[in-house]
């Protein structure tokens, strides 16, 4: 590839990672990951627990000094960590607008934005609460509000819906989809949940043994329904890639569940 064409491509790309490696001591967690995706693209990253999903996400966030390879990401990016990571000494609102004021934004308009975003995640009335008084799911939604309020060009989400009940989860899915449609950030969503990945993403990746072992485009017509044969086929493909034996799960996901099926509840481990 010539220098000019790679520069032209870089304009369109939101994430360009080449040969990303990370070792902890002897252990090679990431063994040469190549990944590129464009502006506005919604990518889901699946993988078993401990496969290195968070490690890769932290590398893209620019938080890992020990990572090797080439990584290019937009400057304006925000992260929802696997834990809510709210400063316990600041009110919920102050947490959401942390670092938002200054640089041309007044504290007042930052607070207004923060309030509006808290309302969108269903936390209106909690603005002045201490984070310690929030439930696990509420804290996670506050963290989501903190990431969304700064309208990032790259949104990195590390299992942001883990502690939510099925109903709130559906609402948060809708919210993320809505905000994605409105601001078109590139999104990398790390999740354990195959259904969630297929529902939300344009593209699903599976991380196995430190490399991306599967990279599929989601080709399910919207609105995406779990009963859609294309949905079912893709789910089966992804579960197989993750090493989950569907027949051992004890129930048939396509018929009964309205909520999501976390891959960790597999009977294959018992």
């Amino acid at each position, binding site marked *: 590839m010539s220098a000019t064409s790679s520069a032209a491509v870089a304009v369109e790309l939101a994430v360009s990672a080449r040969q990303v490696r990370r070792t902890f001591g002897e252990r090679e967690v990431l063994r040469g990951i190549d990944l590129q995706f464009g502006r506005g693209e919604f990518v889901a990253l699946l993988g078993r627990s401990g496969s290195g999903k968070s490690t890769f996400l932290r590398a893209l966030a620019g938080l890992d000094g020990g990572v090797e390879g080439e990584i290019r990401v937009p400057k304006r990016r925000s992260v929802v960590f696997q834990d809510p990571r709210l400063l*316990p000494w*600041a009110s919920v609102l102050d947490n959401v607008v942390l670092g938002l004021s200054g640089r041309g934004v007044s504290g007042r308009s930052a607070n207004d934005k923060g309030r509006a975003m808290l309302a969108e995640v269903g936390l209106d009335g909690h603005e002045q609460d*201490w984070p310690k008084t929030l439930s696990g799911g509420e804290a996670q939604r506050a963290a989501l509000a903190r990431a969304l309020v700064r309208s990032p060009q790259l949104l990195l989400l590390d299992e942001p819906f883990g502690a939510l009940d099925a109903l709130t989860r559906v609402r948060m899915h809708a919210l993320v989809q809505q905000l994605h449609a409105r601001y078109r950030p590139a999104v990398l969503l790390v999740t354990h949940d195959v259904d969630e990945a297929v529902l939300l993403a344009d593209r699903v990746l599976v991380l196995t043994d430190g490399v991306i072992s599967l990279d599929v485009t989601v080709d399910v017509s919207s609105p995406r329904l779990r009963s859609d044969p294309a949905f079912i086929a893709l789910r089966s493909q992804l579960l197989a890639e993750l090493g989950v034996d569907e027949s051992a799960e004890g129930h048939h996901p396509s018929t009964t569940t309205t909520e999501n099926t976390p891959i960790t509840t597999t009977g294959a481990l018992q």
Partner: protein
Amino acid sequence: MTAIQTHPGGARLARTTIGRIAPLDVATEANDTVDLVTLPTGSDRTHGRWHLPRGVVRLSGVVVLIAFWEVAARAGWISKRQLAAPSTVLTAGWDMIRAGTLQTALRASLSRVLWGLAVGVPIGAGLALIAGLSRIGDSLVDANVQMLRFVPIIALQPLLVYWLGVGETVKIVLIVIGVAFPIYVNTSAAIRSVHPGFHELADVVGLSRIQTIRKVVLPGALPGFLVGLRLSLAIAWLLLVFAEQINAKSGIGFLMIRAQTFFQTDVLVVGIVVYLVLGVLSDVLARGLERGLLRWQAGR
């Protein structure tokens, strides 16, 4: 309480995750009956016994001790030369207040402690910030302070007197040094132990260095600082007593030394009680400060 009988064997079946019903092969001796225990809940208080406030109960212990002391003194179990009775102490204290000697002494002592704190706390906290926030600061400050803090402060007195004479300065400097160490040790440890994830967060949301210090490091280190403050208050009173009893022309310690030469045990006890009250008051103050500043820690 009645134990509830379960249907025999009813508790022995468990559904495994893969959907088959399988007998649970754990030991069955204890599983025939289920003994329920009642957990204490908030509603116990309403129909429970009537309780005195905790503070009153605790105070009554002190009253009993003082009453016993009074009785022992009156009955002659304790000689007057050894230890004055509480009533005598009270009278002596009242006389000293009327004569104004207690107030004058109190003012002198308080001003030494306040000066010591006013100078020592910022020094300790400032050094902790330098050591906690920069690598160079850490290597310059921390190793030295961590070594010096094992010097018993009292051992510095002769050298300090040699440098500073026997006036007010030496007493205040002694307190300054004594106060700065616990503040430093606790604050710098607290700065270091601020969750690394919060630094990542500061990074991700684009806080500047100053903003990170103001919004993340300082509030995160505040609990540790306040622990240091409480410790340093106790040390300040201790060093005050020491400094005032070596050589002083004013203060509670001065009153006590003079009383000692005249065998006035009642005045000696007045001095001790004043120190005690000052110590307790400053601890109450520090706790109040903690409650006020660390409201975010409440809850869960």
